């Protein structure tokens, strides 16, 4: 739609103005880490953050979410908990992940609970200013982004370029006074920053091409690495739980004290957890740790790409950091199974 330019003071005024009118959530410092949380002042927003502990997925698919209230005699009502907000500072790789969830939750059975939340959120993405320790988005084609967001902020020198792409984005920039237009020179600088970020956000170097992963994995089902890595796996699910593209959930019922009514909720689940694949009759079709471990890398590198045409890993590196046993680096695993195959 248009690309504007703001200095830090003008950006802060804009954010403070938004906070007066809406719920605004952004990347903020939390102890010695960063996380997304509700902002009370623009001064809390840290667009220079390297990585949030959890991805912003938590606003689209919360850890637990009520789905229906029910009566044991059979009646029920859907519960929708959409939470309108402006989400500030979503990095490109996390934006790719949100777009992927959009696709997956609207396929087959449209997930109304997800969609209602999604529609109520305006996303202001932000190009990465500080590379985190384990990010490899540069290898996955997700270091920069051109779609999916409502607004994209890019820091050029001491100015921010404000790239407004949608009606929703337009709506939250109205009424804050005139914003000057970005110049051709600003846009050239942005191109250079994007090229630079493709190089910088590569703390781990993936050797096989991303497009080759499905075929590579198809030939690696019996590779010894699955057994080897799983020896050290706690099945704690940390890699699943911090992942911006993992979307599996369990559904549970909880009764009220009257035991004639209750609510049904969903709660994050993960394919690395021991009971994830238990089905009726107590049969566990992925009972061995190595089977679960393998499944996760197949899911990201083969099953998701075959389903929607894009890789299921966006290279944020959260799983690399979150794994206590330090066995969950997808780059290390894909490089290893590619050995001798290129």
């Amino acid at each position: 739609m248009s690309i504007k330019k703001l200095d830090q003071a003008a950006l802060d005024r804009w954010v403070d103005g938004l906070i007066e009118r809406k719920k605004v959530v952004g990347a903020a410092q939390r102890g010695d880490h960063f996380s997304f949380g509700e902002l009370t002042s623009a001064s809390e927003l840290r667009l220079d953050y390297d990585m949030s502990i959890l991805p912003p997925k938590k606003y689209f698919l919360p850890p637990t979410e009520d789905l229906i209230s029910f009566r044991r005699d059979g009646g029920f009502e859907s519960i929708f908990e959409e939470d309108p907000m402006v989400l500030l500072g979503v990095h490109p790789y996390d934006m790719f992940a949100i777009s992927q969830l959009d696709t997956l939750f609207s396929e087959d059975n449209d997930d109304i609970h997800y969609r209602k939340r999604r529609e109520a959120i305006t996303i202001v993405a932000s190009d990465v200013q500080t590379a985190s320790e384990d990010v490899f988005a540069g290898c996955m084609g997700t270091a920069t982004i051109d779609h999916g967001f409502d607004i994209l902020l890019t820091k050029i020198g001491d100015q921010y370029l404000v790239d407004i792409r949608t009606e929703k984005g337009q709506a939250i920039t109205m009424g804050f006074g005139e914003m000057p237009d970005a110049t051709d020179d600003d846009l050239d600088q942005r191109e250079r920053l994007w090229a630079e970020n493709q190089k910088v956000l590569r703390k781990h170097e993936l050797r096989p091409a991303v497009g080759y992963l499905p075929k590579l994995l198809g030939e690696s089902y019996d590779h010894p690495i699955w057994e080897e890595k799983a020896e050290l796996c706690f099945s704690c699910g940390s890699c699943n739980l911090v992942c911006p593209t993992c979307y599996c959930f369990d559904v549970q019922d909880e009764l009220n004290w009257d035991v004639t009514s209750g609510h049904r909720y969903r709660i994050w689940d993960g394919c690395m957890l021991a009971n994830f694949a238990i089905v009726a009759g107590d049969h566990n079709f992925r009972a061995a740790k190595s089977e679960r471990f393998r499944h996760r890398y197949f899911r990201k590198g083969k099953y998701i790409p075959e389903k929607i045409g894009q890789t299921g890993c966006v290279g944020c590196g959260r799983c690399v950091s979150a794994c206590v046993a330090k066995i969950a680096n997808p780059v290390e695993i894909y490089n290893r199974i590619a050995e001798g195959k290129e």
Partner: protein
Amino acid sequence: MSKPRVAIFDFACCEGCQLQIVNMEEEILDLINLVDVVEWREAMSEQNTEYDIALVEGSITRPEDEERIKEIRGRAKILVALGACAVIGGVNKLKNRFDLEDVRRYVYHDDADMPHLQTAQTKALHEVVDVDYKIPGCPIDRKEFSYVVKCLAVGKKPEIPSYSVCVECKMKENVCRFEYNEVCLGPITRAGCGARCPSNGFWCFGCRGLVDDPNVNAAKDVMEKYGKTIDDLKHRLALFNTDEERAHA
């Protein structure tokens, strides 16, 4: 449908789990509306030998305790172990690391020979009688307790998490305690507490016992990655998981 009759008993423990039930405050009215509490020494004077569900706190530490828990088991249709002492033996199992006679003298001095102060190896309830359901934790989680009682009242099997504390810790967006160079038992400990200790700045003490299939060998190898020793892990396990610490020594 008549209300299920519930009796609450205790063995060797601090009675802190029963205190959690008392602490349900206004919800305790919902509880007694749903079930008929017929015996509960901590909260009422009445006693009763007729009950459907026995909720039992504490571990078995004396010869006469074994007889008493067997009698309770015989009367109850459903027996629920309440809290770490009942479920895994809890801190009481520390006693099993020492000579029992020494322990008795150390604790009771001149009174050690009195007949009611006989002592035996500490056992969790399931080591003496069949236990139908377990509500782990030191103390129990009130929300989980309410959930189990409601399930039992309608004849539904309660599901206690089989996954580790890491799951709930990640949901709370905590920073991993290992990043602070602490030995945390979260990766091998059963969840259900909402990662209470890590969420309040401590490592996980393992009070809910280990998950069904804990990778204790991995825990040993992982110690090295963090500049820790197997002894560091064993010390941490000893508090609530003496048996596990010994089994994997």
